């Protein structure tokens, strides 16, 4: 019963947190660029307005893919925060991403087609680091359960500094931020127009936006896990990471997918793999 209540709470609260974070992002970015910027709740207004717009559907599968994307994204978080297996959560997250890619592939637009291709490349780029993060957490906490990791009282960050840095590196890919807003950027000011989501409109686009809020909350939850020995430090670290993301977004040009891919794998190998190897030898020896 408690778990069901928790799941419902998560499903309602996560998009609110994600949306407010998106609002903070926009206000802060505006301040960094000396603009006035929108009000804090602008992302919510945008999504509400999108729901009122006429939805053009270019393909009958597109709708289903978008729904699957948002459902799996919500489920991922539910698994994660309700003490489920984080490994399962991460695979559900990947599945949610795959549904979005399928949705983009299903349309005929060359923009979303290329966006989907680039998203696949990005997925290949960040997935090893995500897996290494999971493995690292298991090595420290001896469990894949969120609750047990969170309750382990061990400062995971001290064991996994390299993994954490690697995770920070791939975070902009997942948050669709500069320098890795390659497949679909927030501003739609790139050669692919809006890439992945070019052919979604109206309520479907609103759903994808909400899914993105779930994703943001979830990723910050993962950051929290690194600092879970102290909830206050954990929450501060999660928000700090998000602000760092905004700062990086505003100070880097968009990179190309070749560099995104090679650098992400390089960092996963050196920082992530190196960290785990050291941990293994210390624990083993």
């Amino acid at each position, binding site marked *: 019963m408690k778990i069901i209540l928790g799941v419902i709470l998560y499903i309602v609260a996560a998009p609110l947190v994600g949306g407010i974070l998106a609002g903070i992002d926009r206000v802060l970015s505006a301040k960094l660029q*000396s603009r006035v910027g929108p009000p804090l709740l602008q992302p919510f207004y945008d999504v509400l307005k999108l729901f009122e717009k006429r939805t053009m559907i270019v393909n009958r599968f597109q709708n289903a893919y978008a729904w699957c994307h948002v459902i799996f994204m919500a489920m991922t978080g539910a698994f994660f925060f309700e003490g489920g297996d984080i490994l399962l959560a991460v695979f559900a997250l990947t599945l949610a991403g795959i549904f979005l890619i399928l949705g983009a592939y299903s349309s005929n637009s060359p923009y979303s087609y*290329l966006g989907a291709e680039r998203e696949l490349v990005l997925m290949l780029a960040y997935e090893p680091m995500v897996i290494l993060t999971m493995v690292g957490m298991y090595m420290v906490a001896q469990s894949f359960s969120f609750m047990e990791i969170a309750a382990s009282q061990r400062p995971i960050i001290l064991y996994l500094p390299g993994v954490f840095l690697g995770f920070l590196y791939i975070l902009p890919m997942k948050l669709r931020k500069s320098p890795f807003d390659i497949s679909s950027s927030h501003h739609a000011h*790139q*050669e692919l127009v809006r890439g992945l989501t070019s052919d979604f409109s109206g309520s479907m686009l609103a759903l994808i936006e909400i899914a993105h809020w779930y994703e943001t909350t979830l990723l910050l939850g993962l950051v929290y896990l690194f600092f879970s020995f102290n909830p206050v430090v954990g929450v501060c670290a999660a928000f700090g990471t998000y602000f760092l993301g905004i700062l990086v977004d505003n100070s880097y040009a968009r990179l190309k997918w070749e560099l995104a891919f090679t650098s992400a794998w390089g960092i996963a190998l050196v920082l992530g793999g190196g960290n785990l190897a050291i941990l293994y030898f210390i624990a083993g020896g």
Partner: protein
Amino acid sequence: MGKQTIIPFGPQHPVLPEPLHLDLVLEDERIVDAIPSIGYVHRGLELLVSKKEYAEYVYVAERICGICSFMHGLGYCQAVEEIMEIQVPERALFLRTIWAELSRIHSHLMWFGLAADAFGLENLFMLSWRLRESVLDIIEETSGGRVIFGACKIGGVRRDISPETLRDMCQKLEKLKGHMDRLTGVFLNDRSVGYRLKGIGVLTREDAQRLGAVGPLLRASGVDMDMRRLGYAAYERLSFEPVTENDGDCYARCAVRARELYQSIDLIAQAVSMMPDGEVDTKVLGAPKGECFMRLEQPRGEVLYYVRADGTRYIERFRVRTPTFTNIPSMIHCLKGCDFSDVPNVILTIDPCISCIER
């Protein structure tokens, strides 16, 4: 060899808010061909010349383009003055030079912003356009207009600038230099910007000459050609060296424009210090008869005007060959073989101004 995809680029595209259409033929993410087409916003301004009196057409000429507006007016006036053999007062020539250089500064600053937007650095975009705003303020203060100056007329200029305003302007521009250091510093030294610009869209010296490139595009490929050397307006009496770079890539084009910003400020300072006193316009009588070619250096490069008049108050034929039009072959050449993600950078560093093409 991958499957070929055709990506439509423009006339409505967020990166290129200009009515140019490009069909990009892609193999995976590599461009194999680019096919341009234009004509979406053709306004018939060249035809309008036979419907307006020759002195009134200056206003139309200024509206060919919003960015090089003053230069278009200037080119038309100079062509008519050349045909009618009008001696323009010295002071007017210096004022024209100052306005022309202010146009260049504001055009280049705007370009920097668009280029930053093309590689996804919104912060830098805001910075360049904020600096541009201060140049627009100077332009408003001196000419009364922000985009369309309306300052040039046949036989001189429409209004004078007082010595105090000129002094003020020089001080403001000196201050602007400091801000520009920050802007150009990011463009020329930032690692991630360099990654997007260096070695991208290379146009060799030979190709640039063969394909008829002009302006910063040509100078970035190491060719020292600048129409200001023709000595129109007051350029004859000012000392300057055309800015050139040798690499011919997007980075070199940035560097050329960055250095031209400082050059323009320097030219304005020279013009202000040498500014003679006197009238700013002469009376124009009669009507032009004959024909002439007139060339200027716009922010985007060499522009050519052809005016043919038959002795009535209506000019028979007016043609503008804009720099963007003659840079199209180079643009297509640079696009071939580059990555799809480089397309915005390559197109932007040519600095296309399609409204100029669509007279």
